């Protein structure tokens, strides 16, 4: 029982990583019907920026803001820089290609991904980088007989707060209604007076910012980052967003958490080496029986 609970908590931790990254995929997909293959690299880029802040400015920051302050500064700096990069990428690489349709943008996104990945490699070098372990809290907590690390608790609280905020924005505010309307039908939404460019700007700042922030959390959780890790996380997060129903924001959160928990339970009870196979088989089974994902709505094909 104890092992199951611990595995579920581990699963929820990586699940919240997947969920936060998946939000970026699903928001962009909802608005533009574009699979943003560069999103995984936004995540990596953010992770490296957070690393740089922590390594080079740590002494200065910890004196002025304390340890938690330093981490917070790293997270915020990464999120803001990547939000800017997200907007720039959208303007330079995606916007000129939208009019041509869906598929050319996919190639453009893959090109952007190659570009970003190699830019990261050139800036920080091809080797693994390690987050400074003296800056990362490593306290352990006992919660009702289950051992959890303090970092996990912080990550979970932070992700749930972020997801809650995003859920509130998207489901309860007027601007959120505009986003949902755009995701539902872009041309009609624009006829109703919704500023589509504003919505696109929003998803291309918030998505990458959430990705970057997750990057810093992943760096702190696993201590080690590499310039190719964006592919792996991106793949899982994209899978999570499809599992939840792509384009659906709560779906991405649910999908991410389910994927994380499944992966950890699979690793514990089936086999660590086969856990990814297990995850993808579950995904395929879900899609066979619910072709639009767990929370996806069935959309009738227009004739």
């Amino acid at each position, binding site marked *: 029982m104890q092992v199951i609970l611990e595995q579920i908590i581990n699963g929820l931790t990586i699940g919240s990583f997947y969920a936060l990254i998946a939000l970026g995929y699903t928001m962009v997909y909802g608005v533009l019907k574009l699979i943003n293959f560069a999103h995984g690299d936004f995540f990596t880029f953010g992770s490296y920026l957070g690393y740089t802040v922590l390594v080079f400015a740590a002494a200065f920051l910890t004196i002025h803001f304390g340890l938690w302050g330093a981490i917070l500064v790293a997270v915020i700096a990464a999120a803001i820089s990547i939000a800017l990069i997200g907007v720039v990428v959208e303007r330079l690489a995606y916007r000129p290609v939208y009019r041509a349709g869906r598929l050319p943008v996919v*190639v453009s996104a893959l090109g952007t991904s190659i570009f970003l990945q190699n830019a990261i490699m050139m800036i920080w070098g091809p080797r693994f980088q390690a987050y400074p372990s003296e800056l990362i809290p490593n306290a352990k907590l006992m919660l009702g007989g289950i051992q959890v690390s303090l970092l996990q608790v912080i990550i979970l609280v932070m992700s749930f707060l972020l997801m809650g905020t995003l859920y509130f924005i998207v489901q309860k505010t007027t601007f959120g209604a505009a986003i949902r309307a755009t995701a539902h039908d872009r041309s009609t939404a624009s006829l109703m007076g919704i500023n589509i460019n504003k919505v696109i700007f929003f998803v291309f700042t918030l998505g990458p910012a959430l990705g970057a922030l997750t990057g810093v959390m992943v760096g702190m959780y696993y201590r080690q980052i590499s310039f190719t890790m964006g592919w792996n996380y991106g*793949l899982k997060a994209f899978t999570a967003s499809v599992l939840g129903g792509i384009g659906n924001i709560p779906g991405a959160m649910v999908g991410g958490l389910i994927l994380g928990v499944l992966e950890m339970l699979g690793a514990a009870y089936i086999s660590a080496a086969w856990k990814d196979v297990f995850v993808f088989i579950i995904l395929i089974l879900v899609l066979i029986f619910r072709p639009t994902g767990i929370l996806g709505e069935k959309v009738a094909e227009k004739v």
Partner: protein
Amino acid sequence: MEQALSPEKKSFLKSQPLVVSVFVAAFIVYPFLVSDYFIDIAFFFGIYALLGLSLNIVLGEVGLFDLGHAGFYAIGAYTTAILNTKFGIPILVLIPISALAAALFAYIVFSPVIHLQGDYLLIVTLGMGEIIRQALINNPFDLTGGPNGVFGIDFPKIGEYFVCDSSIEYYFLIWAIVGLSIVGLKSLQNSRIGRAWNYIREDEVAANANGIDSRSYKLLAFVLGAGLAGIAGNVYACKLMVVSPESFTFWESCLMFCIVLIGGMGSIPGVLIGAAFISLFPEIFRPFAMYRMLIFGSAMILMMMFRPGGAWPRKRGAVAFRSLLEGTGRTDA
């Protein structure tokens, strides 16, 4: 009557026989003029051309998103590697066997999911590719050799008289297969099957309404595409003499996807251009060392800005083709 059915203008071969024969002649003469290094580059161009042609059946002709095509390529390569090293079956005999293995796998795996639409099918293909790769790494039944792969694959040979063991022979082997595939695919394009595929791509509902069994035709496309990728895997395995899971990553599938889109969906000359771009570009820009992948990424973006339909888009149905690019018709108008 035949003319009325296929509004395509005369095929390139018939209208420009001189240009085509010059190209073919150049391909034959090329390996005798350059060093082994350049012959090998042209060999990998051939491999990518074959992979591009195979994905083009699924993505270009039928419009099904397939981002797991490297999985079929892997099955072809591993079938060859395992049967050759464990049972000593000759490579050339294994060409059809690899194709059949990949095709059979595609049939079994895609039968239950072929009804999925667009991006949902894409994620299933993607998952399938990852499952295959992970399975190869995990070394089931001690067959695949885990992360190290299988090595010691034989040369293709006919008895003792002809042994294919030099760059130039491999070059002719792959380009002969590519040439034969082009001839076959070209006639398939203008056949009843090719027209049905294109009809499904343009409007599946209308195709169904007109009595096209879209399910079987889509499966057929996957099976043929997988078979061709399996052949590419066979040649790749015997050229490298070793196969390992890292050759068949998601990234390979993405490259194949780009080959088809950069060239122009459903266009055979386009696939050759796309394959040339993907395989030759990094070589040409080798002097730029570290920057070459940055240039490569930017070039992909620029290509899509200036030629969104691909470098050599297919002529027939050029108008309808645009409708596909504009999405599934649900939101983008």
